[in-house]
């Protein structure tokens, strides 16, 4: 029987929460990809999105606020055979963890990052998140938001992510497909997931989004993919992705903005220096000799330190 990727833990998100759609999309994607549950790990941060790993029947780490990316990177670099998905909040990724978010774009170590984007800090009762627009006043705010918003799509592109997409939690069919493509992507991917918070965000509601979202691939000429050998297309496709990524307001594009398969993953870069990396990564290395002592030959490893 196929593995049930949904765990038996009671989900305690608010009724009507957009997170349910994301959870379902993830479990369907994992099922359809027929992944071995022991080889998929979820790492999350703090907040409502942070609970996601507990609801998935795969190994999971509910880490610290904003730190899901470095935990995930450690897992992935130590054992590149694992798939690591990173469900996180907009505050996690773009506020407290923004430095890690940018750094991971530069690393490209093969994480699937999903931003649960609802413009508010839900679990602490609705404060403004980094994706909320200037002047917006949701019902839980004492006064209108005094920050301008950060754009997850263009930030991800600028940070160097090789796969950038947007989904909508109430369009699970599309979201599931995006997640599947992202998981199969060799480098790191970012999926900005529009996810209404029914309790604290009375402006960006499900209805609000439904009226605005459209699919990039409704345009049959839309092709965000850059395959090996076609590196020359990257600059133009990046520009197009950036333009589409900047669109927000009456119309909000969803789908895959950018999918560059030619940027070497961090693993490939590591393998240049440590040629045994892929075949024998840190997680699988035997670190002791047959006598129970170190197998390292100090003299051969550190010849310049020896005085004969």
């Amino acid at each position, binding site marked *: 029987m196929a593995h049930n990727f949904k765990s038996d833990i009671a989900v305690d998100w608010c009724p009507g929460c957009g997170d349910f759609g994301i959870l379902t999309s993830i479990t369907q994607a994992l099922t359809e990809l027929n992944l071995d549950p022991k080889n998929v790990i979820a790492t999350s941060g703090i907040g409502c999105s942070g609970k996601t790993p507990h609801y998935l029947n795969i190994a*999971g780490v509910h880490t*610290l606020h904003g730190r899901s990316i470095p935990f995930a990177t*450690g897992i992935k670099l130590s054992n590149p055979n694992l798939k690591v998905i990173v469900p996180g909040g907009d505050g996690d990724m773009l506020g407290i963890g923004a430095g890690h978010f940018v750094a991971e774009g530069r690393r490209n170590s093969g994480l699937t990052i999903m931003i649960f984007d609802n413009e508010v800090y839900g679990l602490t009762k609705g404060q403004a998140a980094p994706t909320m627009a200037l002047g917006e006043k949701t019902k839980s705010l004492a006064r209108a938001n005094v920050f301008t918003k950060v754009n997850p799509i263009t930030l991800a592109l600028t940070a160097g992510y090789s796969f950038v997409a947007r989904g909508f939690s109430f369009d699970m069919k599309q979201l599931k497909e995006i997640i599947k493509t992202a998981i199969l992507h060799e480098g790191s991917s970012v999926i900005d997931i529009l996810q209404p918070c029914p309790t604290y965000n009375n402006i960006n509601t499900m209805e609000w989004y439904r009226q605005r979202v459209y699919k990039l691939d409704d345009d049959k000429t839309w092709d965000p993919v850059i395959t090996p050998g076609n590196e020359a297309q990257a600059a133009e496709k990046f520009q197009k992705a950036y333009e589409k990524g900047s669109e927000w307001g009456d119309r909000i594009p969803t789908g895959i903005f950018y999918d560059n398969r030619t940027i070497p993953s961090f693993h490939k870069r590591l393998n240049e220096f*440590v040629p045994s990396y892929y075949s024998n990564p840190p997680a699988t290395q*035997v670190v002791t000799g047959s006598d*129970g002592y170190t197998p390292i030959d100090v003299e051969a490893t550190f010849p310049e330190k*020896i005085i004969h």
Partner: protein
Amino acid sequence: MDLSLTIGGPQGGGIDTSSNMINRAFAEAGYNVFGVREYHSNIKGRHSYNHLRVKEERPRSLKYPVDILVALDPDTIFEHLEDIGEGTKIIYDKSFETSDLAQARLIMRDTARRIKDALDSASVPNTIKGALELAKKKGGIPMAIPFSEVVTKAISEGPASRYFNTLGSAITLSIAGLDQKFAEEAIKQVFSSKPKAVEENVKVVAGAYDYAKENGFAGKQLKVLPKIKRLLLTGNDGAAMGKLMGGLRFQTYYPITPASDESSIMEEHEHLKYVKTEQNKLREGGVVVVQTEDEISAVTMAQGAALTGSRSSTATSGPGFSLMAEGISFAGMDEVPIVITLYQRGGPSTGLPTRNGQSDLLFAMNTGHGEFPRMVISSGDVEECVYDSMRALNYAHRYQLPVIHLIDKNLANTTDLVPDIDLKKVKVNQAVRPTTTRLSFKRYNLDTESGISEMGYFGNDVFWMTGDEHDEIGHVTEDPMVRDMQMRKRFRKLETALNEIPVEEMAQLLGEKNADVTFVTWGSQKGPILDVIDDLKEEGIKANLLYIKMFEPFPEEFVKQVLGKAKLVINVESNMLAQAAKVIKLNTGIDIQNNILKYNGRHMTEDEILKAAKEIISGKGKNLVEVLENGA
């Protein structure tokens, strides 16, 4: 022979190369060397120096005054007036003599003021000439060498100043009476990959030896000692080597002094070589070293790697360690085996970023919110850095917790000639992975007497982890009973550790069992105090040392037993608050009254500890706390 010397010059002016050359030349002749590097937080120009000691037996400490002061710039003479005593030979370039203190813009202003006061009160001009007059009054012997002339005579091409460091070292070696061939051999080692540099520098060495001979500087020929295989290592080298030997395969770091050298050394040696007997049995391997975006990432990324079964660690210094606090709390809560090597420097805040300090002991013991078990260990010499780094990884994996390994800046930058590394000193245990997939694995199984639950491995087992309090498979719980049980389980691991770990890995009584004076210390004062104990013995005073290596869990019984019998106890630390004494009091109730403390950021020297100890022993000292001030 017991030769002390200081070689100083502008940062970036090849001071390290010259010290390396001196060290290797003496090592080639069979001698033992020991030294410390002192430098400003600066790339080029400000004063830096190496304080070295050469002996037939292994030196364990440094002392003032020095026998030879090599000045590669005028600032060095100004800065090191205090190091000069009866018979100190001062090697400098004749052209320095006209240099004026007022023009020495890169000497820190407060330091320049103090130097001015010293020159003024000796009624000598504020110039190098004046400084040398003062030096002579102290018994110093200025030895002006025409640096440019000697170099130009030896080689015609390139700027002469490029070879001043080689010249200074070669003159020093010649004065010490070391045969020229050892200096040449050292040059070959130092410039191994650059044949042209070897050729040029060997010529400069010859020029320096000729000059010294012609001018009567050359010392009486030193005897050559039998040579044995040794390793010339710093504390940073030792820790890097020990970690790799101890099975470390994943290291993270964010650049910070004096910790990053450890990671750079690993990057240089990331492809591992195995001993012959294992070559056919083990698959090729290597260490992954990742420079992260900050220390928060460093400590959490290392944990991610640990969850897959890798032995992993990070290395940092005070400011970075502060950022790691929350991550360390997670490792405590979630029982993640990681090692954090904490290179202490002078704090608080940015403090003295390139200077020594031991002020992070209490912080290491209390970092992170909430109550969780951790281990805090400390190393006191370069060899300990090697073996303690291996042990730290073993402890982390055996007890599944964060291990904080304290090394001070002084030790990180100590150069020591270490006898051959013993590959069989510390065992390295292999993680045993399950052969089957374990779903809903009880990673935090409460049914454990030792407090240690079976380790789970991502890639094999499905279980959960959370910074929240959790149940046995790692899901969030706020159940009051499970909370209590998990708290007790976690802390039982420390009791287990205390029972399993041999006491000598925690604390040692060094020297005679019964003594009139018992010193207490940790970290890099170990060597100097052992030398002071020998000095006191010559004066008829019996002393020993309670040397502490583990602060958490604390070897309470052993320390109680030693201090309970001790007559006069003197605690020695490089901080202001006598932090180890506070830990001892907290754990044993014993209140140590006498302290020798230093917090000016410079290494403790044998002479100053001896002087302060004698003040205390004689009862003449006015204070219970003697504060040491040596060092430029």
